[in-house]
């Protein structure tokens, strides 16, 4: 794994793969193919902006980890541009202790680019937005976001996909889980602009409530201004099936273990799609820290 640490808007170590960093802009050159994930960590900077540019025809896996113990207001402004024909697998880990965090992450998908985006949100109080704009024909973006709130956590997550190109495909599968008195608001918005023929849009939102005090709100929204498209959506909220909990407990598992196993099962369709083992392990350990 290639490690890049950004602290106080600076990178002290030498950069791998010919990557350059200047004016808060990290540029991955054209035709970079790396099987090894590139892990970018933003350390305790409570006001950070960063742009990542993935060069033409590059094929990379990126983990962006934003973790901070800082309790003050945190603002993050992030942007990823996937140039033509690039392929990006991306895991965003958002683990902020702040009582007032704002995170905006924009993604731009150029022609024929392929973005596989996963967001893991285990912050304290946050308003986070992942917004992907498909501006090139044949671009393909998949977003899978999981937000888990526990004691006193309040997370509002907006996932937005905007089709501004013909023949573009956008999918989102988002899951919200709330335990104890935790709260998650999950908004899924998918827009197809006028004239963007043959666009494909699909979204599913799911919520699991782990206790009587937990609050989950899911809002699936499709805004379509064109006829020649395919689109679908679905949203569900439910409690863990108590009969299944009983069933697992009858084999000796403690209630907590049984619930954990079931929630992991619920996330399994997202987890098993993560092809990269490093990403998968990081994601599983991230979501399990709150279960």
């Amino acid at each position, binding site marked *: 794994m290639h490690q890049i640490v950004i602290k106080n808007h600076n990178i002290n170590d030498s950069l791998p793969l010919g990557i350059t960093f200047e004016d808060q802009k990290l540029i991955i050159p054209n035709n970079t193919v790396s099987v090894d994930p590139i892990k970018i960590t933003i350390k305790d900077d409570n006001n950070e902006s960063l742009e990542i540019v993935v060069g033409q025809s590059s094929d990379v896996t990126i983990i962006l980890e934003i973790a901070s113990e800082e309790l003050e207001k945190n603002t993050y402004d992030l942007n990823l541009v996937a140039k033509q024909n690039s392929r990006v697998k991306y895991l965003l880990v958002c683990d902020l202790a702040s009582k007032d965090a704002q995170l905006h992450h924009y993604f731009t998908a150029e022609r024929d680019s392929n973005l596989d985006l996963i967001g893991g949100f285990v912050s304290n109080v946050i308003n986070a937005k992942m917004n992907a704009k498909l501006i090139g024909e044949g671009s393909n973006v998949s977003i899978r976001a999981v937000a888990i709130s526990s004691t006193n956590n309040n997370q509002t997550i907006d996932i937005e996909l905007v089709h501004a190109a013909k023949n573009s495909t956008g999918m989102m599968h988002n899951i919200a889980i709330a335990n104890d008195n935790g709260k998650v608001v999950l908004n899924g918005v998918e827009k197809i602009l006028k004239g963007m023929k043959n666009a494909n849009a699909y979204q599913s939102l799911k919520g699991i409530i782990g206790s009587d005090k937990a609050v989950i709100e899911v809002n699936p929204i499709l805004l379509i201004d064109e006829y020649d498209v395919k689109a679908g959506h679905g949203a569900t909220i439910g409690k863990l099936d108590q009969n299944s909990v*009983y069933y697992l407990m009858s084999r000796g598992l403690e209630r907590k273990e049984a619930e954990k196993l079931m929630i992991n099962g619920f996330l399994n369709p997202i987890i098993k799609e993560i092809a990269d083992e490093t990403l998968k392990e990081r994601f599983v350990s991230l979501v399990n820290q709150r279960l």
Partner: protein
Amino acid sequence: MSELAIKNLHVSIEDKEILKGVDLIVKSGEVHAIMGPNGTGKSTLASALMGHPNYVVTEGEVSLDGKDLLEMEVDERAREGLFLAMQYPSEVPGVTNSDFMRSALKAKNEGQQVPLFEFIGKYEKAAKELKMREDLPHRYLNEGFSGGEKKRNEILQLKMLNPKFAVLDEIDSGLDIDALRIVGENVNGMVNDNFGCILITHYQRILDYIKPTYVHIMIDGKIVLTGGQELIEKIDTNGYEWVREELGIDFVETEQE
């Protein structure tokens, strides 16, 4: 040698009394068949023993080797050595059979994980004995399983966990003759000096494979008659009508809940 003792057990569901004083003592090495018409409380007994939250014990005692089971949570009862093969096992999407079974074994071994290699060997052997599909470990727990597969999966779990006592709640219902034989032979093979079993059924066929030490007839929430295998034959030919006449008990057969 272990002992499961049920004394004067009264159980209600939503304020309706279903069990009205059940007494039963099961020792290791014994098989107790509990038979009776539909709706007389047989499955209620099974669920109450395991501790299903919808079943409220209003009176009586249940102990396993002197320890009070009714004080325990469902999972504690299981770790104490009680197993319930359910009539309608849940389907749990996303949780594979092998992950589930490894977690259950870990819980049983006080948090000690069974070495993977040893686990696979044991699991494959048990799966083969129950004629399960080869991809079983990777399939989700009971999801999309046929009725017979679900029942065989219960027995597979029973074999892996190797409890002191098992309650088999209508493990034979809805099974075709091959599945019935596989289930019957596997359960019968488990009975030994360290394992005892309560077999709840209202059909006689399973008893061709598992020979009960005692046969009990349950009617209207009570065990009204206890005997040996001669009772099976009597039920087989005459149904339960004779119980009404011989013992002077009035009962109505109801649909299963």
